């Protein structure tokens, strides 16, 4: 039973502001970032522990925030296998039909969710992303990719606004709100200990309800609408999109995977290596 866990930083208890990586080189900011990476690792570890307690046999953790290297590995449960780094061959590599379920730790609400802490979709310039007319944030997009492979989205931890969005989209999903966004830059947060306790319990529960959750699958073809805050698109140079106006473009693809390849121009020839050292191969 392999569980695929996406992670983000904005929905971690104790984090309330945007991570300022390159612009603020102060000691204060450095210390805060180090601390928040540990908190993220603790929440991921709590989830890993709960998932194992609930019957998972493998947990793949996608270090998804920012530069893709935010989880403090020295504070992470060693049972986790980690995907990290940049220029990845796909947003959620290895999320496929071999996974029993997927979930998200450190979730923030989607773009435009007034009152939510640090709400956004992918980046701050996106006003809204819609798929077949359904507005989806990062959580919803992950659920749709998993749904393509028949994998249910079973666990969401983070801002209560994000948890509510998960429940609205996916009946039966197990959530663990670890903070309650009160504005984009403020939140009522659980203590670190309570946050981890909630996450551990929710993760264990999620493993028990996997079979009751319908995978979230988008009908084919998938129609994508990309709305931006600022004028961004050039009608003269639409690329593979249909540019409606400077703020809006659309695209259609056979399915969500094909759509992701088109949006991000991922290398289509990438495949996992599946290398097994000779001394560990079972002699046939």
């Amino acid at each position, binding site marked *: 039973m392999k569980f695929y866990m996406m992670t983000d930083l904005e929905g971690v208890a104790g984090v309330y502001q945007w991570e300022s*990586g390159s612009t603020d*080189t102060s*000691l204060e900011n*450095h210390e805060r*970032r*180090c601390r928040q990476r540990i908190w993220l690792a603790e929440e991921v570890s709590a989830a890993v522990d709960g998932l194992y307690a609930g019957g998972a046999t493998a947990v*793949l953790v996608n270090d998804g925030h920012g530069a*893709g*290297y935010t989880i403090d*590995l*020295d504070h*992470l*449960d*060693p*049972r*986790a*296998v*980690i*995907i*990290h*780094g*940049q*220029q*990845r*061959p796909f947003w959620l*590599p*290895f999320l496929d039909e071999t996974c029993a379920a997927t979930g998200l730790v450190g979730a923030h609400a989607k773009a435009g969710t007034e009152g939510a802490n640090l709400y956004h979709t992918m980046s701050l310039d996106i006003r809204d992303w819609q798929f077949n007319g359904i507005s989806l944030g990062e959580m919803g997009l992950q659920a749709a990719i998993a749904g393509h492979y028949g994998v249910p989205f079973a666990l969401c931890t983070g801002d209560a606004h994000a948890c509510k969005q998960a429940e609205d989209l996916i009946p039966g999903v197990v959530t663990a709100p670890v903070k309650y966004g009160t504005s984009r830059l403020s939140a009522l947060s659980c203590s670190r200990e309570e946050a981890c306790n909630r996450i551990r319990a929710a993760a264990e529960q999620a493993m028990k309800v996997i079979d009751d959750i319908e995978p979230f699958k988008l009908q084919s073809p998938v129609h994508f609408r990309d709305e931006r805050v600022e004028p961004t698109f050039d009608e003269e140079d639409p690329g593979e999109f249909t540019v409606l106006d400077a703020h809006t473009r659309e695209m259609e693809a056979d399915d969500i995977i094909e759509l992701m390849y088109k949006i991000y121009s991922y*290398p289509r020839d*990438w495949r*996992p*290596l599946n*290398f097994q*050292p*000779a*001394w560990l191969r079972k002699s046939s």
Partner: protein
Amino acid sequence: MKIYVVTDLEGVAGVYQWENREDQSLENMERRLRQRRWLAQEVNAAADGFFSGGATDVWVNDGHGPGYTIDMSLVDSRLRIFHGGQRPDYCTGLDETCAGLASVGTHAKAETPPGNLYHTMGTSIRNYSLNGISVGETGYQAFLAGHFGVPFIFCAGDAYACREMEELVPGCVTVAVKEGLSRLSAKTVHPLKSREMIRQGAEEAMKRIGDIEPLKLDPPIVFRCEFVEPTLDPDNPPPDKRVIDTHTFEIEAGDMVDFMNKMYGFDPDYTPVWKTYRPVN
């Protein structure tokens, strides 16, 4: 039974990006210190496995960057470490007294996408070959060991590096602690897990020593280096080098040691002090 270990940083579990030795930010410093610790801990794990498998000595060549990357404070007390720059030869102490050569923190050779941080020596090199056989850094060391009759027995690092070494040296034991997804991303096991896997693999490698052929080349040795960019002036060939074109040079040598001396200008008469001096008391 002495095992000689060459280490690198790029193939250590938890490391995914190039080490930046210029960036003086706190963030970068903190990351580098942490990665040096992870390297030391993988080295310790390998050594521990070698000792359990029967090794009596483990000598470690701190091979990454300026040659001072392993966190010495954490090194297992049974080990000896070669470190520093301007070294007198390529793998000081690697000779016929060694029972096996091993590699920890290994990355794949140049032009191995999507291996994590693949390169050969530097990113300016497209390929190294020895008598027509393409080699990365680790293959290059394996041929040097072979000159002394020493087999390459163990490789820990990126799955692409492990595959490369298994193809070059049938029978060697490899431990893939990560798999490159692109040059700058990887799927990795946790550093604690990598140590466990490395320890096991290293112990297993000790059992295979007698079964693994040392890599040998028929003399003369023809080494070929191809650069990515035009780099060489055919009218001004460097000493001992044959410039084929602006991208390519060759070195012809009697054996691997002679080749290394020609390649790097080492003194052929160099003898390490531990071979000649013993304290009187």
